[in-house]
């Protein structure tokens, strides 16, 4: 939900509440005041009636005032009383029944007893209340309108620096356009926000560069001692006086040093891909690349007694870094070779949108969804680094390709698609 809408809804709700409460209170106060006035009016008219009765002591059974508002009736002896009540009277002017206040009381003058009814129409006060209600509603609508105009104006002017910053942030990509420049807005809060964002961005950029440098330097620093370990061990292995046992132990250390160095370079490669450090791209026909890699691997494939079945149709051209394209295909092919069955096969089907590399083999011992994670290894795959498919997947991600696993017709398939 947009901030503006959110504010509008909250504000409308609160305004509605305030207006309702204020309207009700106003109405209540007004009604009380009107009632009081009417009561006073009735009381004062009662005084006039009593004066009239004292002065004239009329003997007519019924006296009605010209406007029907006073009604005097002569009655037998009655106890003095006084009662206020509500009633409806027919209003001559408005031609309708109108609510009215009624005062009934008894009065005794010189042994004559009278019952008097004085009525007072409430029509005017009713009108007044209506006017108040409509006024409140109209005021509410006007306030809402003013609010929405204010908001529109605010978002166009006052919020402008905020939206500017937002669009700048949207276009920001780490490691690319390294400098983001926020304009001074003249609004303290936004300037503060921009200042903090600037600080954060600079920190993130610096961390990113540090990390990049760190992974490069770490690799360099690790490769050099590894090179020393390897070469020293290689020298020792030349020693003819070594016993069988010593030779084997040194060779085991030598092997581990080699593995470590391979792992190190694979991790470095992975972080370089993730950091988007391979920027140069070319249009590369992946199918042609597969053909040439297959030729290169032919010997290894023959030695493993694998059958290669290919079905190439169309072309699969991708704008990709050439080094990474080769690594991607190498990893897919060597994965198919490594996890193949005895005398198995590699089936490669390539079309315009999809390339699948399939091989028979033992059932997966790991979740297919975890296949592309780092250091996920098939139980039988001994000394592999467990990074090959992670690297392949990472390459695909950075060049808008997808890599997925499927099990089709008893074959493990890795499918590369656009």
């Amino acid at each position: 939900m947009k901030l503006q809408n959110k504010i509008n809804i909250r504000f409308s709700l609160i305004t509605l509440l305030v207006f309702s409460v204020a309207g009700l209170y106003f109405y209540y106060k007004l009604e009380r005041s009107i009632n009081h006035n009417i009561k006073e009016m009735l009381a004062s008219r009662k005084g006039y009636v009593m004066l009239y009765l004292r002065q004239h002591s009329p003997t007519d059974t019924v006296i009605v005032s010209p406007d029907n508002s006073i009604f005097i009736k002569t009655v037998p002896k009655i106890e003095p009383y006084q009662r206020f009540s509500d009633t409806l009277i027919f209003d001559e002017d408005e031609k309708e029944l109108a609510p009215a206040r009624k005062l009934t009381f008894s009065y005794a003058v010189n042994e004559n007893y009278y019952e008097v009814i004085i009525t007072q129409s409430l029509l005017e006060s009713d009108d007044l209340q209506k006017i108040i209600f409509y006024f409140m509603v109209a005021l509410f609508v006007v306030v809402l309108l003013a609010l929405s105009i204010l908001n529109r104006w605010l978002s166009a002017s006052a919020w402008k620096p905020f939206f500017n910053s937002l669009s700048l942030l949207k276009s920001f990509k780490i490691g690319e356009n390294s400098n983001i420049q926020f304009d001074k807005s003249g609004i303290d809060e936004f300037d503060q926000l921009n200042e903090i964002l600037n600080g954060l961005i600079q920190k993130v950029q610096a961390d990113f560069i540090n990390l990049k440098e760190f992974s490069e330097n770490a690799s360099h620093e690790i490769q050099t001692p590894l090179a020393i370990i390897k070469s020293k061990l290689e020298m020792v292995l030349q020693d003819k006086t070594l016993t069988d046992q010593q030779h084997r132990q040194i060779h085991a250390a030598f092997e581990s040093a080699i593995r470590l160095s391979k792992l190190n370079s694979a991790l470095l490669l992975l972080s370089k891909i993730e950091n988007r450090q391979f920027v140069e791209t070319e249009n590369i026909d992946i199918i042609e690349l597969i053909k040439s890699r297959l030729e290169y691997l032919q010997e290894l494939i023959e030695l493993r007694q694998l059958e290669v079945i290919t079905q190439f149709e169309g072309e699969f051209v991708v704008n990709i870094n050439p080094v990474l394209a080769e690594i991607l295909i190498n990893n897919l092919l060597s994965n198919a070779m490594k996890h193949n069955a005895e005398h198995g096969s590699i089936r490669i089907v390539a079309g315009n949108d999809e390339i699948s590399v399939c091989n028979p083999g033992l059932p997966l011992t790991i979740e297919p969804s975890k296949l592309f994670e780092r250091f996920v290894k098939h139980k039988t795959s001994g000394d592999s680094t467990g990074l090959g498919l992670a690297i392949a997947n990472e390459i695909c991600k950075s060049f808008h390709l997808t890599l997925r696993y499927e099990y089709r017709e008893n074959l493990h398939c890795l499918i590369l698609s656009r």
Partner: protein
Amino acid sequence: MKILVIEDEVNLRETIVAFLEEEGYCCEQAGNLELGSEKTNLYEYDCMIVDIGLPDGNGLSLVKELKKRHPETGIIIISAKNSLEDKISGLDLGADDYLTKPFHLPELNSRIKSLLRRRKFEGRKEICLDKIRILPEDRMVYVQSEPLPLTKKEFDLLVFFVTNPKRVLTKEAIAEHLWGDFADSSDSFDFVYSHIKNLRRKLLEKTGTDYFQNVYGTGYTFIGEA
């Protein structure tokens, strides 16, 4: 043959020098760019092995300088950075070869020998060993003037062994020599085994000598006098 080794890591430099001296080369060493540059000014070398990342500068500048002054010196770059740009710019500047650390010492040896052969004898130098005569440029092998047909890999393997005679060549070094980065799978050792078996058989049939010796299941040694 005089070789200059420029490498800032003392341990690695000394190992390389020790290995090459065993091979019969006369080695000089330098630990930084300044000393290396000084030495190349004073003396002439047949081959220079230079690390790119030196404490006082990039080894590539020395490659450029040396190529101007002594174009006949062979140059091999060794680098911890497996970056394509470095490789390309190094070779563009006139370096003859590029090795990524960590490398196998026999691999370095093999590359130096091949480089010296190409530089000193315009590639016509034969490698002779007992009854075996190898013409590296023509990729031909003769046993007593009779050609011995070998596959590409078997030929590479034979040259690798012949340039490193009497040394233990580990399966890892052999696999890496034959397949480069593809040597990472453990099956590649089976392939090494099967290639060596074939080469061994072919040589045994023609020469009557078994040149290969297994070393405790870790590698092979080529026995034969050059």
